[in-house]
């Protein structure tokens, strides 16, 4: 099934919550409203003709210009060998999206990574805590306005320039 047909089916079911997004250079992308993302994913996985049995990737992107955080879902179907990208935007000061962990178990870690590095909170996630950074870390390092702290537990993150020694 090609991306146009997948998009048509999503439009049929979800109306204006889904719109085609043609700025993509590679995979065809659908922009989806944040609140509908779990429902759209459930349809994509459970409809036998769509059959997206694999969440290949989930990435959060900080769009500081638009004051949003965009989360990209790269879906694959091993059964039908087709693919699609979903893009959900959520407000930057308080990014919240519904979880998809109940659909694909790999989403557990991918969502934890997006939470840890970009601060997106996924409602309904069973165990949303930091995964790569230490548990007591403050801030989300992949945000564009993240400032590295001067020290961590008394360990300085700065050092004198070699020329000043």
């Amino acid at each position, binding site marked *: 099934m090609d991306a146009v047909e997948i998009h048509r089916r999503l439009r049929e079911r979800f109306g204006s919550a889904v719109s085609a997004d043609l700025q993509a250079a590679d995979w065809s992308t659908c922009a989806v409203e944040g609140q509908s993302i779990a429902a759209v994913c459930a349809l994509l996985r459970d409809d036998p003709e769509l059959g997206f049995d*694999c969440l290949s990737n989930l990435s959060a*992107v900080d769009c500081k210009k638009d004051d949003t955080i965009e989360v990209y879902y790269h879906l694959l179907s091993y059964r039908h060998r087709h693919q699609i990208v979903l893009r959900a935007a959520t407000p930057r000061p308080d990014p919240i999206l519904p979880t998809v962990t109940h659909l694909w178990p*790999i989403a557990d870690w991918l969502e934890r990574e997006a939470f840890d590095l970009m601060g997106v909170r996924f409602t309904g996630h069973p165990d949303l805590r930091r*995964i790569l950074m230490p548990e007591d870390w403050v801030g989300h390092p992949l945000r564009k306005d993240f400032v590295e702290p001067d020290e961590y537990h008394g360990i300085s993150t700065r050092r004198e320039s070699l020329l000043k020694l």
Partner: protein
Amino acid sequence: MSTNAIDVDVLRETGAGLETEEMTLNMGPQHPSTHGVLRFVVKADGEVMRRAIPDIGYLHRSIEKIAEKVGYHGFMPYTDRVDYVSAMQCNQGWAMACEKLAGIEVPRRGEYCRVIACEFGRLASHLLSVGATGMDIGAVTPFTHAIREREYINDILEELCGARLTFNYMRIGGCAWDIPPGFVKRAFAYLDRFEPLIDEYNELISFNKIYVERLANVAPVSPQQAIAWNLVGPNLRGSGVRYDVRKDVPYSAYPEFEFDVPVGTGERGTLGDSYDRYMVRMREMKESCKILRQALAGLPAGPVVAKVARTFRPPAGHVYVRVEASRGDMGWFVVSDGTAFPARVHIRTGSFAAMAAIEEMSKGLMIADLVAVIATLDIVAPEVDR
């Protein structure tokens, strides 16, 4: 003696004093068989694990954040560090993502050089994996055989690009250097030596009864589970799913070569067990040799790199490029905002998914089998954390 017997009988009837407490064991971060710095918290009932919870992040070097600071060309050496056991395919993933963003075509000789570099890299990586699998479960000698061959392959790659581990060989638009004089002859000579050694290695260890007993029926993964957990590469194929990015989403020069995609069949136990994952790697080495022979024989003439502007500014957009790395389908998600620096880079690696699957896979396994699972999933810790 008689009193003891009575005591035991009483205990048997009441069950008092016989229940065992759940133990919490710490494994790692500096454990010799975890292939890098990673840690497990094991909840065990005697020798049997209730679950093993992976704790990652010890090798997090924020490679994705660095990409936003150093620009497109400057990021190439960093990609070597994503998976330093087989860095060539990381080079290729990054180069392909940039080329797709900017619409650059790689010269045909450049593609062939990439295939040759990547397949030698795959041989080197699989050798380390199968050698370390033996060592982790107690067979030390085969590891020395595997490392000996890996050193020869490192010699070949050194001849190609001057480095033995972090190659920095590819560039956006092709490769940094052409194939040196005499390389093709020496590469063929090495393949003639190496191919019979795969059979020797199989006879030495793969069909050894103790070895088979340690791996067969350990942590089987069904095809449905493998797909849902997003296992990729040899781990996915070990579960019997015939999917290889080189075949199914053809890229580079791979469509021009003939090779098979070996899958697990449950030959010694259950489909998708540790032995299947191990054997898929052994068989893939033969397929890599096949590809190498075809690529070396059919090497086209011409340049190896296309002309690319020094300040590389791809148009705004986003790409998700997948390459078949040694640890499977490696996804490179790159967002460009039209400037000389990428807005976001995300690398979805095979080891990340494999680590995520361990918590489910480990339920009910013996503690000693955990290292067999880590080894046959071929987890490389820096690739998990990036």
